[in-house]
């Protein structure tokens, strides 16, 4: 046990002494606010620019001129030739059956926006007339009023949980890559591997220590991801959902399940990556492998996006990688079922045990550390000798 702890300490120190590791962990803390800020500012700019615009529309139906000639639409004279030449944003006329036709250019954002404005004005006009007719004829018209049963804080959390849940598995994959390469691969083209492998170190402990440190760093990085993402979203939530502005921030106690859920996910992801990287000899090769494997690894993330949306999250509880998203979603919105969490963590553990245990039985754990004995086709592929 002492040896194991020493090894843990050694590996952890080795990883942390490299500023790249710290940069990797800290990166999301800076990246998300920046991306969010840039995105929101950009959208606000575009929206404001559009709000200031006036759409030039030729109306060839006298009855509709008055209806349509109000901001943002301005009725101007013009023909289809003008529309094609870009001097008009839309042209409205009426066909033989009395249906209104809105001529526009599909290729132009201006023209599409003008079309939408015209449609809106027409709908408003029609609703007006129908409301008046209903009043005249004494027909009751219903309106819908929606009341939320949960308080605004819970609504805010649902919103945050949805987004964070969707992104959690992706952050795990991204977070686990660098530490796993750092701990398992980088040493392979350095002289220190010989020193290590010729010492009387128990392989199980060695791989165990590396797994724990790599998964631990991945966990910290993914927590940083989720935290930065959560704070960014919370900070900017009102920009997206206006009525959530200044809503108090109340976390459901079940959010405490997020760290263990991410820890389980980090272990599984690290184990998968360690196995994948067993054919890599250099940092570079590991990165190439990751580029190819990323699509497969990110698949659970994509599937679970739909899982969050459709409320069938509980069905995914027994499936490692897939359940990261749904468990985090449920935990953050305060609807986590305890058995789901337990099943999820148990299956994570089982997956790691099966993966690494199976590898040990078939190939031996040495190969995870040294990468020696990779198939010949990999050599041919990389072109290195």
């Amino acid at each position, binding site marked *: 046990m002492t040896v194991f702890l020493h090894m843990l300490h050694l590996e952890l120190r080795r990883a942390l002494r490299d500023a790249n590791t710290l940069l990797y962990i800290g990166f999301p803390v800076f990246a998300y606010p920046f991306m969010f800020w840039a995105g929101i500012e950009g959208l606000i700019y575009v929206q404001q620019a559009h709000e200031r615009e006036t759409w030039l529309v030729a109306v060839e139906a006298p009855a509709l001129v008055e209806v349509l000639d109000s901001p943002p639409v301005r009725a101007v004279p013009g023909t289809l030739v003008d529309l094609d030449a870009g001097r008009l944003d839309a042209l409205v006329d009426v066909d033989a059956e009395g249906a209104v036709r809105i001529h526009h250019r599909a*290729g132009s954002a201006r023209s599409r926006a003008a079309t939408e404005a015209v449609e809106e004005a027409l709908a408003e006009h029609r609703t007006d007339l129908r409301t008046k*007719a209903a009043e005249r004829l004494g027909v009751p018209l219903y309106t819908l*009023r929606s*009341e939320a049963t949960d308080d605004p804080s819970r609504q805010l959390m649902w919103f945050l949980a949805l987004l964070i849940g969707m992104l959690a598995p992706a952050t795990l994959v991204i977070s686990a890559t660098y530490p796993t390469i750092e701990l398992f691969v980088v040493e392979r083209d350095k002289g220190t591997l010989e020193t290590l492998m010729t010492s009387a170190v128990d392989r199980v402990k060695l791989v165990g220590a590396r797994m724990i440190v790599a998964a631990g760093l991945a966990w910290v990085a993914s927590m940083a991801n989720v935290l930065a993402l959560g704070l960014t979203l919370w*900070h900017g939530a009102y920009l997206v959902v206006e009525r959530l502005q200044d809503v108090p921030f109340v976390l459901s106690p079940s959010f405490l399940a997020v760290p263990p859920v991410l820890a389980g996910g980090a272990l599984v992801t690290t184990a998968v990556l360690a196995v994948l990287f067993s054919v890599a000899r250099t940092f570079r090769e590991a990165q190439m492998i990751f580029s190819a494997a990323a699509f497969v690894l990110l698949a659970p993330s994509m599937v679970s996006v739909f899982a969050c949306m459709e409320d069938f999250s509980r069905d995914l509880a027994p499936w490692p990688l897939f359940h990261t998203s749904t468990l985090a979603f449920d935990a953050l919105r305060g609807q986590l079922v305890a058995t789901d969490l337990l099943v999820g963590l148990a299956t994570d553990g089982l997956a790691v045990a099966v993966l690494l245990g199976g590898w040990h039985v078939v190939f031996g754990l040495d190969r995870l550390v040294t990468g020696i004995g990779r198939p010949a086709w990999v050599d041919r592929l990389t072109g290195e000798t």
Partner: protein
Amino acid sequence: MLRAVLAVVRHELRLQTRQAQSLLLFLTLAVGAGPLGLVAMDRWMAVTEQSAERSAKTAPIQLSADPPIPSWLVEDDNLEIVPGPVTSDDLLEGGESYGHARIEGDEVVLTRPFAVTRSNMLEGRLVRAVRRSNVDRVKAAVVASGEPWEPPLALRWRRETRDEDARAGEMAGRSLPAMLFFLLLSMAMYAAVDVITKEKEKGTAETLLVVAIDRRALLLGKALVVFGLTALVGATWVLGLAASEGLGVLRVPNLFEGAVFTAANTGVLLMGAVLASLQVSAAALVVAALAPSFRAASILSMPFVIALMAPVGFASVPTVELGPSTLWLPVSNVVLAVRSLMAGELTAGLGAATLGVVVAQTAATLGLAGWILSEVDPFDKGLDAEARRGTGDFGHDAFVLFAVAMLGFWFFGTVMQKADPVLGLIGSLGTLLPLAALLGPVYVGAPLRETLSLRAPSGRDLALGAAMGLTVHGVGLLVAAVMQPFLQTPDAVAQGILDLADTPLPLLLFAGAVMPGVCEELLFRGALLGLLRSRYSIVVSVAVSSVMFGFMHLDLARIVVTAAMGVAFGALVVRTGSIVPGMIAHTLNNALFFGLASAGVASDGLGIGLVVWALCATIATGGLVSLAGRGRPGIRMEEGGRP
């Protein structure tokens, strides 16, 4: 020159073709992400569309309702009435019903949990059901009264598209350039790292550099290879997609509602690929030149990818169009121009202007890349970070520390201050800055005491600090008054300062004067100035740390004034060899600001008194500085010994 460039190009191409990885990446990007990727996307969209249709459109959603339930609600096949009533907790626990409806007069009141996706969908369906029933009932009443049901009461409309072909082009123009950019980015990054960074790592750079060849030819040749490979990926991708559509392998029409790869569009995309390759490879060369190793390059590439993909994302927003305001955004302009051309909307004038801007920007970027490559000699591996630190040089670390500390401070500081302005200010200043100031030097192994100028000050040093505080405040007011017509503090910042004025004076002084005075000094005149001085001269170090201090304040009006204050505080710390006088000066300056503000004295109302104050204080400080300078040279790191 030309012959030399060609020799380099031939040499680099020979190296690239010898590497299966290059070929593999090329095929992955140009073919795998091209026709194959789009076919997969097409299938994926078809599948999700089907399943979405099944679950969202056809399956009814359950709700409970109070009697009497109107018939239109029961008859709607989108909705299913189940027994109620239910409480909100039942709903949240996943009970039978996703919402509860009741009729109050002419209002349909829906009670439903917000935090359930299906309940949100229920609301949408109910809105439509109400609207439909309203129309049905009005129509029935109108017909019953013998009136005709015709326009305008029954107004109908439809869209008539003038440019059916352009629609596909426009839709494709919104997504294809974005995909293309990402692929080009991957290739350019890989190639640039391979021809620049890898040479440094493998020791071949040395061999290459003693060859008698013009260094500009060497760099130009390498840049050409990076650009060529990148453009080749783009061209292969575009032509591959065009061929797939032509052969009917790829059902692009399904994705974009029409044929995309007409001869004209293919030409446009090819041109866009070439322009984008230019932009992207120039930027990638800069990253590769900055990175000492392959690993560093892979870390550096993360912010690089974000910085380039953000404008791509912006340009993919449907409402963003190429115009006088968007023309200037690098990367965005190429994406928008391609989209605009494919949508048949680009006018000749705008097109020419855009091309001009893109060419000018690319030339400037290449120039910048060239400049960096000549300044930071790309083949001089130099000392690695650890060896450099071993010689007592922590100059580079100062810049990293500044970036990390500021990004953290801006982000967490904003969040903390949103929670509570005063406590947030205290919290963010009091934790983040000292942490950075202490952990930074400790992490890189710089001697803490020397770096932070932790030395007990003499009485004269303290007096000097106080005098400097008065001076800086007076001069600062003067500068602000002079600059008033040109640069103004944004309303939001001014408002933020005003908000603070409501707090009790002692708390305000603590949050606004003592905390910044102590914590900001610890970071800027302590850690950053100390680390900078281990490499650069005193003048450069004070100047750079002051500019950093200015940028911490983020708005243009304050950057200038605060940077100038930074110089004063920096000079004070260098002169006295202790951080404490700087802290006193800084605290006093801020205290005067908040003290006067809360006493209701407007700074622009001081008039001539201001000038007198500033002059007197300047003379007094000048005298003190000349006194303090005697017999005490500034402590330099070299003399303080190496760690």
